[in-house]
């Protein structure tokens, strides 16, 4: 085992006086796929944004041993982190091709960035739409473009926020396969998902957030076995048992 790639220690994020994330610690080892699950408002998106530097956070965030906590987003991008946010944040009035080109901006035209043709092989639908504006794409195509754009930056850690959001089941399966394949190619992945089954099926390890704190973590197989507990925290089904009591022992 090598050391962790990403390490967050008691990270907290507050909007004014309301703390959305409270003392969350997590690690992602190289080449692993880690998922963060939780109900709406549990703090998943806030956590990812804090790790990426979009939101200011307290605590310590380390990437490959170096302290990122006070670095701006751009500096974290330069170190090899990448985030595909929930709203995708594509350049809607620019072409698919230009979106991809800007994905490799951190290399400033020097070699090292991704190859557009390779992306088109990976996502053939994008090749058909290469001269179209990103704003004209369908939901699934947007997610593909967001992933391809992020991959153009050759990230070593890719964070995805709800990649299945608003996508039809077939496309969700597609997206999950791609994420899984990236992990196999050596990219470490931190995946935030509400689609718990799909996420746990491809993940190595998982964390469950509730009320801004980690209430449960473990190997994805363990979590899958503990499905009822997980689902209660996700607000999916009425619980027959009283889970919060068991949560503490879940760690």
């Amino acid at each position, binding site marked *: 085992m090598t050391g962790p790639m990403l390490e967050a220690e008691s990270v907290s994020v507050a909007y004014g006086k309301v703390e959305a994330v409270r003392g969350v610690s997590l690690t992602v080892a190289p080449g692993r796929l880690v998922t963060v699950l939780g109900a709406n408002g549990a703090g998943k998106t806030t956590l990812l944004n804090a790790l990426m530097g979009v939101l200011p956070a307290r605590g310590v965030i380390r990437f490959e041993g170096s302290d990122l906590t006070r670095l701006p*987003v*751009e500096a974290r*991008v330069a170190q090899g982190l990448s985030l595909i946010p929930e709203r995708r*944040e594509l350049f*809607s*009035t620019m072409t698919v091709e230009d979106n991809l080109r*800007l994905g490799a*901006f*951190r290399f400033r035209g020097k070699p090292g960035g991704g190859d557009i043709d390779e992306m088109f092989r990976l996502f053939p639908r994008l090749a058909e739409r290469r001269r179209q504006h990103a704003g004209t794409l369908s939901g699934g195509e947007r997610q593909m473009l967001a992933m391809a754009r992020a991959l153009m*930056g050759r990230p070593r850690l890719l964070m995805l926020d709800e990649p299945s959001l608003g996508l039809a089941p077939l496309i969700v399966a597609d997206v999950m396969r791609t994420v899984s394949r990236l992990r196999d190619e050596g990219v470490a992945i931190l995946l935030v998902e509400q689609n718990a089954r799909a996420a746990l099926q491809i993940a190595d390890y998982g964390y469950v957030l509730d009320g801004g704190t980690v209430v449960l973590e473990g190997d994805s197989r363990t979590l899958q076995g503990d499905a009822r507990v997980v689902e209660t925290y996700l607000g999916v089904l009425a619980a027959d048992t009283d889970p919060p009591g068991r949560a503490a022992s879940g760690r």
Partner: protein
Amino acid sequence: MDATILLLLLQDGVVNGAIYALIALSLVLVFTVTRVILIPQGEFVAFGALTLASLEAGTLPGTVPLLLGLGALAFLADVAEARATLTGRVLLRLCLRDLVLPALVAAAAWILAPLKAGLLVEILVTLAIVTPMGGFLHAVAFRPLAHASVLVLLIASVGVHLALTGLGLVFFGAEGSRTPALSDASIPAGPLTVSGQSLWMIGLTLAIIVALWLFFSRTLLGKALVATAVNRLGARLMGIAPSLAGRLSFSVAAFIGALSGVLIAPLTTVYYDTGFLIGLKGFVAAIIGGLASYPAAAAAAILVGIIESVASFEASAFKEVIVFMAIIPVLLWRSLRSAPVEDEE
């Protein structure tokens, strides 16, 4: 007013409108990329004109000490900004950009000014003096306010305008200046004569527009600026720093402003505070274009130029009033078709 006069006024309007178009384009660029409504754009125009006039007269322009001072302030601001990641290499780069570059430009101006090296050289020196000021101003005044609202940025922008106008008075005095025309040629065209100066103005305006278009559509850096304007967060996630985009757009604005000053200096006497009114007319055009569309802003600028030239013929004392009133129908129209209610960021 007969047809010849009308044609004359139209010609005048188009030529003035070309300048307003340049200013409006840079205002739209700066606003879409940084959300700053760049009131001091007019000062770049005045500085460009007055710097050229100084060089023409063989004296060291007052903008030279201003450039050195702004560079030093920008250096301090940059070091403070980069303190989390400050390395020797970063420090060296900042030093070169904020201290050495202005010093080299100042040295060039100091050597070339008494030589009266000719109009072309003087124009190049003028552009070299004023252009870096844009980036420096961004670093000193606006980058620390990156998270502020459009309104706060606007108030800061007015503050910068106030300070620069005052400094203009200190460095250039209350006297106005005028420079010789870029060309003495005049070409007869029907009932009119088109001056070489007018052709230069329209030609250079078109050249700048084409250059901007090439920059935005053909270069990675240009596309990065467009990307920042389209989606600021998306751009940051690609590693495009807002400070880079801000510095770049402010520098382009300063360059275009200085060039506008160079073009307008032979037509009118420029004082230290002349730029404000010229800049505001660019604003009228930019606002008509909704502060978002380049072609609409450029077209509106030509219209503003024509309104102004007709107004100055019909009621010269009130020409500014008439030009500014031109935005009322536009605002009214925009107001009537605006969305009902939306929260602003």
